[in-house]
């Protein structure tokens, strides 16, 4: 039998993948439903990290993409009877277009322009939602659009045989896997881009924009590309989210200022410029936040943000890079112990 030689990080990745894939058989249905929502937060966090963690261009209002994708998809489905799949595609494109519209003027300049513009745009969007309650639902949001798929008569009996007997359980099961597939696809997309030549240039822009310019590379072009792609993927996450049973198009879930703050915090806690860190932190954050809200709701945010600040203070690079460093140290120590003494 041949032995599979894996790097430790690859082994950890495979264990995580197996864990996520087998979650429906290990977790209670309600926890699985929470995990589905958490996967969307992970996708959104990855989209922020792709532009801000890699190119260093800080976006403080990334909820605008999540909301543009979510609202556009919901509106097309609710008012124009567009199928959910097509509505998700339209929502993704709309968020990408917003990325171009904001990115082209803001990213050609250096300085705090992008940060300022991204702070302001979500505030404008919140006002627009409130000005047109008839069309956009106002503070209460829109009613939920159609789900992406329905658990059909073909799948339902199969799911019953593996323990998912009620329609609710079956729906949770199906949407968990759909969300997981989307999460993995987005992870793979960002992972490939950030580990490519394009990713090298993103990082180079973050480290020294003048040096990039001196090499003959136009940083603005790459910054706009990263911002647009990040916006489109953030929009995709939002659009898909509202077409699942765990999400719906309301400003509190998609557009509120706290949504933008959360995604920045998640990425920093997980480890900026790693993709893996924000993906993992998005999932963890969702559960911790839900736990605090269900146990100490009146002080949950105080506790949560205080703990987050402490983590940032002691682990400024983020939790995942810290864990990776500890793991490497442990392996080095083990290898050292295994060596024969002379």
């Amino acid at each position, binding site marked *: 039998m041949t032995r599979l030689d894996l790097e430790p990080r690859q082994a950890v990745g495979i264990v995580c993948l197996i864990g996520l894939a087998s979650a429906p058989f290990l977790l209670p249905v309600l926890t699985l439903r929470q995990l589905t929502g958490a996967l969307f937060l992970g996708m959104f966090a990855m989209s922020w990290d792709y532009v801000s963690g890699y190119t260093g261009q800080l976006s403080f209002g990334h909820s605008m993409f999540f909301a543009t994708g979510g609202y556009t998809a919901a509106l097309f489905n609710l008012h124009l009877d567009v199928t959910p799949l097509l509505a998700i595609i339209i929502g993704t494109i709309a968020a990408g277009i917003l990325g171009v519209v904001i990115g082209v003027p803001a990213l050609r300049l250096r300085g705090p322009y992008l940060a300022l513009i991204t702070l302001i745009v979500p505030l404008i969007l919140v006002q627009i939602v409130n000005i047109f309650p008839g069309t956009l639902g106002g503070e209460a949001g829109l009613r939920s659009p159609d789900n992406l798929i329905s658990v059909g008569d073909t799948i339902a009996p199969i799911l019953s045989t593996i323990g998912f007997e009620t329609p609710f359980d079956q729906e949770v099961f199906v949407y968990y896997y759909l969300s997981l597939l989307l999460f993995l696809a987005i992870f793979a997309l960002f992972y490939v881009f950030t580990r490519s030549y394009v990713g*090298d*240039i993103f*990082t*180079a822009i973050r*480290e*020294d924009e*003048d*040096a990039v*310019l*001196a*090499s*003959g*590379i*136009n940083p603005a072009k790459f910054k706009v590309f990263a911002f647009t792609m990040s916006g489109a993927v953030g929009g995709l996450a939002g659009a898909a989210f509202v077409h699942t049973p765990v999400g719906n198009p309301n400003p509190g879930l998609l557009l509120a200022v706290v949504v933008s703050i959360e995604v920045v915090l998640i990425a920093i806690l997980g480890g900026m410029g790693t993709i893996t860190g924000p993906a993992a932190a998005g999932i963890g954050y969702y559960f911790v936040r839900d736990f605090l809200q269900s146990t100490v709701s009146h002080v949950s945010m105080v506790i949560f943000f205080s703990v987050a600040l402490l983590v940032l203070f002691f682990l400024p690079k983020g939790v995942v890079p810290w864990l990776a460093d500890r793991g490497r140290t442990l392996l080095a120590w083990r290898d050292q112990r295994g060596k024969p003494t002379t």
Partner: protein
Amino acid sequence: MSTTTPDADDAVLSVENLSVSYGKVQALKDVDIAVRSGETVAVIGPNGAGKSTLVDTIGGFHDYEGTIRYNGTEIADSSTPALIDDGLFYCTERRDLFDYMSVEQNLRLGSYLNNEGEEERLADVFDLFPRLEERRSQETQSLSGGEKQMLSLGRGLMSDPEFLILDEPSIGLAPVILQDISEALESIQELSVEVLICEQNITFALEHADRLYLLENGAVRRSGTPDSLESDKFVETYIGG
């Protein structure tokens, strides 16, 4: 005052009445310089004379008053990447290398705008600087100052330049390494590439330049060939003769 500035009309690079200010501080005042086809020109002068400001401006990093023409075209509206695309590559004093990238990755960034013949140019750079080939996979931050200078020059050559600007190529280098850089510069000159060097090391500049300009307090005080300037009393104070 000795001035032998060639006619700007036959120059590949001509700078006329160039003035640059940082707020209220004027760094360059009415500077005129020119580089003709096949020439190597050096700009010498003490610290704070405005040498780096001059080449930073030509490289597209500063706004300016006056005229800078490259191949007859005003560069005011050209971005740095556009200038590099037109064959003008500027190796800054900062060297602008990415420490966390390998030597080879840094070199390949130089051919971003022109990757046709990239492999041949990479081989040429390794011929010129065998030390870089030995360290091609090594992280740039682990290189010595001299090796970083070689890498900066090598990255410039990866762009297949027609005109090279070198800001302080000899700065902080040990004599042995300086010899390597000198030899590399001679090889570059043989390729008919125009070179504009900013240098504090007057000996290095005199050795390689066809003509020199002496800059002081943001203005050109002297210009001429190495022979004419070596016998100039004013320049002697800088040469230490």
